[in-house]
């Protein structure tokens, strides 16, 4: 990845909404034009800041959904935002923000929960709900780099209608060799939860020493990480990102 164009400390910059699409009835992808964007690694996030006319401001973190290629002509940055109905920021981003509007953005940040295309190990991605967003960036980056690392995604979501990127995932399973996706539906009979049997069947054996990335709500992340450790995965190879209660 390219290092930040300007070394030094990070500041807020203006981002303009130039495109948008709904991934599910409550999750919207924002396509943002950010002048002089330095590029990012899959798994990194940005902080978004909204400011009201009276000076009140609110700040939240959102994972970047898109992959970055230095040589690509499309230099936009995509975020997928899940609307939380009692939230303060997410309903604004999903329902109020219009094409041409500007928000403030700081990033990319976070050098720990990232996948670098130079990593050679198999990868196991465990997504709970909108926790799929940074993992999708990893799948996209692998696709863009024509990576050969075997990737498996286990995606826990309420119903098939709540799954983000469903069409793109099935296309990539067809076109990106070495990518497998397994869905766990928690609100479809028979109801399923992420469990030992699922991770055992659809993940990688611990012997393969895969790099594991777990992202989702706290309860999902803690359950999934505990199962991975119980199955013999090295805690050092398990990276987690919890989604908070605020929104």
């Amino acid at each position, binding site marked *: 990845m390219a290092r930040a164009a300007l070394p030094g400390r990070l500041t807020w910059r203006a981002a303009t909404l130039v495109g948008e699409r709904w991934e599910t009835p409550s999750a919207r992808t924002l396509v943002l034009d950010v002048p002089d964007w330095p590029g990012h690694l899959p798994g990194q996030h940005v902080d978004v800041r909204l400011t009201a006319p009276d000076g009140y401001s609110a700040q939240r973190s959102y994972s970047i959904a898109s992959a970055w290629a230095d040589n690509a002509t499309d230099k936009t940055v995509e975020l997928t935002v899940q609307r939380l109905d009692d939230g303060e920021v997410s309903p604004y981003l999903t329902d109020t923000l219009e094409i041409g509007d500007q928000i403030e953005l700081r990033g990319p*940040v976070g050098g720990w929960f990232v996948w670098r295309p130079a990593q050679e190990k198999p990868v196991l991605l465990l997504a709970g709900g909108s926790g799929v967003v940074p993992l999708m960036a990893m799948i996209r980056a692998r696709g863009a780099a024509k990576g050969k690392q075997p990737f498996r995604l286990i995606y826990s979501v309420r119903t098939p209608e709540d799954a983000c990127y469903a069409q793109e995932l099935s296309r990539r399973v067809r076109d990106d060799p070495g990518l497998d996706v397994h869905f766990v539906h928690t609100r479809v009979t028979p109801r399923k939860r992420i469990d030992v049997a699922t991770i055992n069947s659809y993940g990688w054996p611990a012997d393969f020493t895969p790099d594991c990335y777990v992202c989702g709500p*706290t309860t999902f992340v803690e359950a999934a990480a505990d199962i991975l450790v119980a199955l013999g995965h090295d805690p050092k190879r398990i990276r987690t990102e919890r989604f908070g209660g605020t929104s």
Partner: protein
Amino acid sequence: MNPLDGNAMAGDLRELFTVDVTAARYTCAGCGHAEAVGALVLWGQDMGRVGRCPHCEDVVLRVVNAPDRVFLDLHGSVRLELPLAGS
């Protein structure tokens, strides 16, 4: 209230430092456990950020943002190992 991970501090810390502190390794003053700052369990988003060691729950670092200053308290960490390459 649910905790986040140390990852969530990355933006605030990158406003202060020219390197990504969440990719640094801390050594916990309480139990000696060493891991990435991004792996800390992060509490208390309103008053300040409190990063606890996932191994022993001791406080490793605290960040408090005042309007005109930032306080970074590291007395729960005996060492930070900062990567210089990449970002």
